[in-house]
């Protein structure tokens, strides 16, 4: 347990410690303790202003991709998963097979074919090329599907229908609440996945103005590995720290909604 805690927390500790160092003291001091001038504030200012503040631009891009991409993916997955769990229609087994198959294919493998397709449509190097593929979350769909089977009692839906509620009204006013822990979980997964998405935007985008933080920070990191390039590891490290702050915040915030058992006792 202790070993696990160290393994999990040490990189974070390293990140915090080293984001307080200047570029010079970064390479001349022990990595796991503070040393030299306390430069955290300077580093944060440097990160936010380097190259005309492109970090802020990347942050805004990432937020856009997360809100539209992860939000949209969660919405679609919830709708589809619920529909598949609660309605019968021909071809359901086929859909089941396709969704399960899609869960097994890593997004990275699809990136290049997707690029070629988007290139034909003229969508590469636009935000759409990152957002549209992010909207699809087979794993999220599957999770909601399974969750809906268990947590939304068919009896409750039948009762709603008897009372004259339409299917959409039933979905938004009754089922969605019962599904909350399920789709919050999906939202967490898609938010983290989109926030950390690297390969897809790397393939799709060529203009740094549309980069998300991951690709942007990597381009800063790569700067130190080119002939004549300026090494700015202190900004890369501070940027990485700033990048994980919102995702930690999102996790803590969403956890509040992570209560289950809402529908417990609704049917006896």
């Amino acid at each position, binding site marked *: 347990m202790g070993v696990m805690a160290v393994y999990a927390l040490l990189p974070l500790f390293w990140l915090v410690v080293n984001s307080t160092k200047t570029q010079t003291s970064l390479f001349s001091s022990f990595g796991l303790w503070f040393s030299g001038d306390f430069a955290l504030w300077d580093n944060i200012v440097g990160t936010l202003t380097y190259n005309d503040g492109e970090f802020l631009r990347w942050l805004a891009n990432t937020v856009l991709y997360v809100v539209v991409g992860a939000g949209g993916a969660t919405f679609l997955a919830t709708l589809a998963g619920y529909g598949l769990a609660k309605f019968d229609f021909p071809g359901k087994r086929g859909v089941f097979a396709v969704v399960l198959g899609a869960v097994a294919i890593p997004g990275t493998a699809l990136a290049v074919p997707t690029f070629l397709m988007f*290139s034909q449509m003229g969508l590469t190097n636009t935000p759409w090329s990152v957002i549209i593929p992010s909207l699809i979350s087979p794993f999220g769909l599957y999770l909601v599907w399974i969750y809906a089977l268990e947590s939304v009692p068919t009896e409750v839906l039948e009762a709603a229908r008897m009372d004259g509620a339409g299917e959409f009204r039933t979905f938004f006013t009754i089922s969605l609440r019962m599904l909350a822990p399920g789709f919050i979980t999906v939202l967490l997964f898609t938010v983290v996945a989109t926030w950390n998405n690297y390969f897809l935007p790397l393939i799709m985008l*060529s203009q740094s103005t549309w980069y998300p933080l991951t690709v942007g920070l*990597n381009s800063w990191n790569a700067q130190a590995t080119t002939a004549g*390039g300026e090494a700015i590891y202190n900004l*890369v490290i501070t940027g990485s720290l700033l990048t994980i702050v919102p995702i930690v915040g999102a996790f803590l915030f969403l956890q509040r909604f992570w209560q289950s058992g809402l529908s417990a006792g609704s049917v006896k």
Partner: protein
Amino acid sequence: MKNNHRFRRAAGAALAASLLMGGLAACSGSGTTANAGAEGASAEDIAKALDTETTLTVWGWAPQLEPIVEAFEAKYPKVHVNLENVGTGNAHYTKLQNAVKAGSGAPDVAQIEYNALPQFALSDSLVNLKDFGAEELKDNYTASTWGSVNLNGGVYALPQDSGPMAMFYRADVFEKHGISVPTTWDEYVAAGKAIHAADPKAYITNDTGDAGFTTSMIWQAGGKPYTVDGNTNVSIDLQDEGAKKWTGTWNQLLKDDLVAPITSWSDEWYKGLSDGSIATLIIGAWMPANLESGAEAASGKWRVAPMPTYETGAAATAENGGGGDAVMKQSKNKAAAYGFLQFANGPEGSKIHAANGGFPSTTADLESDSFLNAENAYFGGQKINEVLVQASKDVVPGWSYLPFQTYANSIYSDTVGQAYGSKGDLNDGLKAWQDATAKYGQQQGFTVTTK
């Protein structure tokens, strides 16, 4: 940071996989658009193109490109240049290959390193600059860089930077332990032993296996493992005399753990360069700028000497890195694009390039007194360019890279890298590398012979 590196490695593997797919397309598409001569332009056409409202897209990561583009736009205000940094090295080539495969989305001008140039040139993705009269520029560039852009009878890029190799060393470390600076590889191995014995934390150099370094070292040893005949006939021999000379030296260092197990360009590496635990670097002449910005704390302690040789007094070196700018076949403004190349890689651009820390490939700059006599404060006032310019003249001629070198380099760690991990014989690793590379080449439609 650690995570970041691991992350990059994983991404690199994925990139290699997609390069593989891109390479396939490059081959199947070759030969369909070849109509040399039709795309050329005269000097007047180029001048006219530079005086017409145009937007050029340039892909490159070199930090020197930015000031060059600014100066170009100031001189030719009607041409607007979109400089895009789509990634460094493999990331850049993957994107370029994807755009070539997709048939659209490629820039007008792309920065391409010498080792990746054959891949794009021989797959017919680049304009043969001979059609624009580039052949006349031959005498402006060093023999080795001009040889690198001359492939199969065409000129596919204009050289920008070059990286003749030299030995960068920590004068203070050698002095402290009373060890003399090596001039031959035997002395280098001996110095490696002495340094590590005097200070267990110090190493003569670092190396965890790097394809570019390996090929450069074989180049210096006189090896010619890759030969390309026509567009499709390739032969690979990583067991020739040169390759064996190098492994003979390097095996000794690896066997006795005399090389720091630190990957170049990592933060640990910069740390080692700063604190003296890495005592020498055998690397390209572009290194000074990186030392100045990455190992600021070691200012005044580094010096430059010629690369050690196999025989006493026989000067020999190789190119390490460096590249040029090419015009893509997909470009719709080829004349203006070539005009940009003439500026960026000609006298005006190369001055800006050198002023921003690049090492030139142009003979005029290399031979200018101001360049040769510049005293570098970081190197304790040493006139380092005297050593580096001499290195550019001592490059062993006749080297060539594979038409699928970027792929070959991407699988280096799975083959030769194993020998590093297990401290085995590098020759076994080179054989495995040769086999895997040959297999890939055959899949790509090349006729590959191995020895």
